[in-house]
């Protein structure tokens, strides 16, 4: 070991024993100016603020999630959890900046400008988010309901802060922004326990309507899917171009909708065939003038 190395090692040991590792950095360099004891303490404060904040926010959000999941529907619960998460993150950020001794007034000014820019950029997202609150207050649907929006029908699969997801009956995922739900007509098909199946029938003019009514009522009362109450609806609607137009409505429990639909329609066809009742097909009555034509010909022939 040469003399120069011995001197350097000796001075490093002395520095370490006097000022810790920071003393190893050259005092007039960039790293020396950045990594002061004060900066280290500030960094520790920031880290503690972030870690503690994350733990506290995590506990609070978990509690909110558990409480709301038990007492509210998935949509409301999800929105409340999301809002509390964003608020918590904002609080952690402010607290960390405060711990870092950052002048927040300047930052707030900058944040204002950035906010305007972000506001324009995130206009749609914010609109969707706020629309979500209106939807929650209206309680039009919840997870598991079957709804129709703009021609798309499906089971509500999930409800999120910005959109809802539907699972269509042919197993496709459809995402619909909350804003669309506010603006357009939403039909909740399974909101109520029972639905009426409306069957439009057109029968020929020679059909005995009393016998038809009796047959329809009888098949409805014999069908296991048709509810006994409310009673079926039978209404002669009009004398149409092709036959007598009728509305026959039977009530089904919402869970029996598909089976009931198939069963009732099959029963009607079977019963009509058995009773000799005919469905009216598009028909035209043609009046022929052939009876007069030969006379004209006869007159013409007599003259000649």
């Amino acid at each position, binding site marked *: 070991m040469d003399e120069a190395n011995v001197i350097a090692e000796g001075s490093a040991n002395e520095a370490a024993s006097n000022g810790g590792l920071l003393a190893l950095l050259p005092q007039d360099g960039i790293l020396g100016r950045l990594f002061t004891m004060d900066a280290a303490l500030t960094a520790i404060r920031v880290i503690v603020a972030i870690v503690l904040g994350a733990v506290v926010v995590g506990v609070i959000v978990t509690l909110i999630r558990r409480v709301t999941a038990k*007492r*509210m529907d998935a949509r*409301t619960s999800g929105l409340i959890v999301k809002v509390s998460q964003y608020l918590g993150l904002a609080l952690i950020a402010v607290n960390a900046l405060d711990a870092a001794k950052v002048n927040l007034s300047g930052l707030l000014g900058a944040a204002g400008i950035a906010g305007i820019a972000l506001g324009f950029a995130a206009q749609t997202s914010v609109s969707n988010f706020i629309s979500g609150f209106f939807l929650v207050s209206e*309680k039009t649907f919840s997870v598991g309901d079957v709804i129709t929006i703009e021609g798309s029908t499906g089971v509500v699969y999930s409800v999120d802060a910005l959109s809802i997801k539907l699972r269509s009956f042919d197993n496709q995922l459809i995402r619909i922004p909350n804003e669309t739900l506010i603006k357009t007509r939403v039909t909740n098909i399974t909101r*109520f*326990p*029972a639905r009426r199946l409306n069957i439009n029938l057109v029968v020929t003019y020679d059909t005995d309507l009393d016998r038809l009514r009796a047959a329809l009522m009888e098949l409805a009362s014999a069908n*296991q*899917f048709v*509810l*006994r*109450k*409310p009673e079926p609806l039978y209404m002669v609607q009009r004398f149409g171009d092709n036959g007598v137009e009728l509305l026959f409505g039977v*009530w089904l*429990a919402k869970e*029996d909708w598909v089976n009931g639909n198939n069963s009732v329609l099959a029963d009607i066809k079977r019963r009509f065939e058995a009773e000799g009742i005919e469905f009216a097909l598009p028909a035209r009555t043609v009046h022929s003038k052939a009876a007069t034509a030969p006379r004209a010909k006869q007159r013409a022939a007599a003259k000649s």
Partner: protein
Amino acid sequence: MIWRSWPVPRNEGTAVHRTGGATLCVSIEQAGDGDVLAALVRYAEDDAPGARRAAQLVLPPLDDPAWSRYYSGKADHYELEPGYPDIPVCVRLHEPFRLPPGADLRGWIFSHLEAKLKVSHAIAGTFPLKKPFKTLYGSPDAGVICRFDEADFLASDEPATAALHEDPSLVAHPVRLRNSSSDPVLVEELCIYGEQLSVFGVGRHMQSERLLFVFNSSGVRMSLEGQGALPPGAKLLSRPTVSGEERFIERSFELFKAITRL
């Protein structure tokens, strides 16, 4: 009395249990090292009119989906237990009547039971003992889907009451109706929540607890009013699946949710 333990019909083909208008058929076939118990129910109204019941019983093959199949392992016995449908029963009275304000009326109604087929104390299937139809009790926007049934409102000493007691597919409900509103109410259907009720049996008679229906301005509510007058020697055949307190708490929470729209 069909409500007891029965040997698995390993060598006798299909076991047939007849109750009222329903016939419950139980059969068995081998599946691996164990057995599969297959059961189905037939209703008298589905039979061809005029056909003799015994001659009419033509069963589908055991691989037909009409059979409910349940793996029963090596069990030697299965039990038949009476039970209520898993949805409420709406009993429509054949002859509706008006109940004046303040009136307090006692009587009997009967409703149809379900047969619970159990293997090693586990439910292998439930079979309605009357062809099941549904109805809506209440309004279309807030009603309840119920099993439909029809009955007369009978007095204890009517001959019809004794005759109905003999039907093994029926359970008798001692009923008390009270109109606490200031207007007459029309009693045309009564909604029974079977999940809260027991079935007590004496010989072939079966009976539930006494039901109290209180009519007031906000509607009608069913509650239990003790066991009623049980005949001596009555034994418990089936317990309630939900206690009255649980049901009360559930209903209160539903009401709270409806009021607050939470």
